[in-house]
């Protein structure tokens, strides 16, 4: 089982499984502790300059937008960032917070490529882009979540994506096929937005789970924002819905409309004009700064942000929500 090929990309977040185990033993309490706090407190306690950080799902769907804005507001810098994103990572890129990227896709989906990404990378402000596929980056988190050093895949083979990654190609000792081994990814901090959580951090999600289960199990610190805080009894009534148990969680932030201007299935739909506003403003660095000034720096927290957006607009999003007939 020789190494047939090694990607030349940097492993920008090296890992040690025994050290991760020790962290999980000593830094993650199994006690039911009230972890509710403001987004200011959560971000200032757990996000730090230079940390390796990731956000779950995609900027317009169940994304931790209120937390992402708070990271910008507190100006955490030199971030090493995990992969895929739309609005949330775009804000960080535009604010100049990102130093290195394990990148899979950063763009504006319907609205095309990301100008913020282009500026940040082409100017050299982002020092390093290590390439992965969407599947691969999730499997890297899944490896960490499983407590194993790598997972094999048949993605990425034969491409420059592999060349610019930190994966390694080997021959499977059972059947002789080639597979790419993806190194585990243990994030320093992860941000995940959910439908409901109790004060201890037990979380439940409606609809697709994206990569919440994997990311929550692949990080040293986990900040949850939630549309609703529910009594623990409600969690215990449907334990088969608890995708994230409390002992994985470090902070629970109550954030109604936390995914706005993106959507939250069954609660509110997306605000298309608000998304387009970023699409337009992000085209130039100057306009992007103006946007950040208006929507991030000049409001002190998510509550003030929602006041700026206004009840009427939010209500319109509620009307546009996905419904269970």
């Amino acid at each position, binding site marked *: 089982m020789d190494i047939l090929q090694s990607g030349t990309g940097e492993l920008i977040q090296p890992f040690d499984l025994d050290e991760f185990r020790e962290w999980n033993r000593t830094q993650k309490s199994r006690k039911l502790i009230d972890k509710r706090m403001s987004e200011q407190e959560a971000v200032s306690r757990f996000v730090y300059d230079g940390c390796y950080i990731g956000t779950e799902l995609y900027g317009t769907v169940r994304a931790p937008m209120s937390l992402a804005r708070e990271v910008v507001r507190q100006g955490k810098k030199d971030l090493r960032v995990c992969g895929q994103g739309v609005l949330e990572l775009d804000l960080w890129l535009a604010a100049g917070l990102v130093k290195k990227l394990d990148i899979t896709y950063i763009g504006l*989906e319907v609205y095309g490529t990301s100008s913020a*990404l282009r500026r940040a990378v082409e100017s050299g402000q982002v020092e390093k882009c290590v390439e992965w*596929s*969407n599947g691969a980056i999730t499997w890297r988190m899944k490896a960490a979540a499983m407590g194993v050093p790598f997972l094999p895949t048949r993605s990425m083979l034969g491409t420059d994506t592999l060349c610019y990654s930190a994966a390694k190609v080997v021959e499977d000792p059972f059947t002789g096929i*080639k597979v790419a081994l993806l190194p585990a990814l243990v994030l320093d901090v992860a941000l995940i937005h959910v439908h409901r959580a109790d004060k201890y951090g037990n979380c439940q999600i409606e609809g697709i789970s994206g990569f919440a289960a994997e990311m929550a199990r692949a990080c040293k610190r986990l900040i949850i924002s939630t549309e609703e805080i529910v009594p623990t009894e409600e969690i215990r009534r449907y334990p088969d819905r608890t995708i994230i148990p409390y002992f994985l969680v470090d902070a629970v932030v109550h954030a109604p409309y936390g995914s706005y201007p993106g959507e939250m299935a069954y609660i509110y739909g997306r605000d298309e004009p608000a998304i387009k506003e970023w699409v337009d403003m992000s085209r130039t660095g100057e306009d992007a700064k103006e946007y950040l000034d208006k929507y991030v720096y000049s409001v002190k927290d998510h509550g003030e942000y929602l006041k700026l957006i206004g009840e009427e607009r939010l209500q319109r999003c509620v009307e546009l929500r996905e419904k269970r007939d």
Partner: protein
Amino acid sequence: MSDQTYSKNELMICVAARLFEDGATCFIGTGIPMLAAMLAAKTTAPNLVPVFEFGGTGAIMEELPRAVGEARTWHKGISALGICDTMETAQRGFIDYGFLGGAQIDPYGNLNSITIGEHDHPRARLPGSGGGNDVGSHCWQTVAIMQHDARRFVPKTDCVTTPGYLTGPGAREAAGLPRNTGPAYVVSTLALMDFDPESRRMRLKATHPGVSVEEVLAATGFELLIPEQVEITAPPSAEELRLLREEIDPERLYI
């Protein structure tokens, strides 16, 4: 012939939609593939099973999704799980078709969506490999949808980020990619292409109405194979256009 006018996007959507086999599973990415899938589901492929990478499978697409994780991607769906489920379903051989895009394509159907210029100091940073690499690796057949010009149809892409036939016959298998997979079609603003089964090189199959073979060749930066018979794609029908304009994309996000 239709007497209606239509946009290039409308035509590409219609041509792509007609490629969907009824009852097949299809990995659907953002943009034109979504419109094509909706159009197919309303016309020739009512039993189409759309799969969206973040977990939605078998949705009934009543409204156009604008993101691959939106609730519309699992609306009245069969299952709404996570990205591992869909990617592993593809890796296990359960996804028949995948739709792809990119900034550049080469004669073997390889796509580039990461950088133009040197990777570490790029002239243009593109979005990244995304799910495209996984789709191109695992789906049985892929269809690329592209603007057609010589800057995009190039002899060699700056990077290969989604595998086509790589360097030619046998190259996918040699790299370890699953057997019998690879690009089937390219739908462009000018034409429909397929791939020669021997050489694995891109081949003109049909030109769009009003487009000459010469125009296609002029807009292609490599030697495109030309078969003896070049078909002409059927223009959008009145019903296709009505569905697109009234039911699928009434807000005109794409068309």
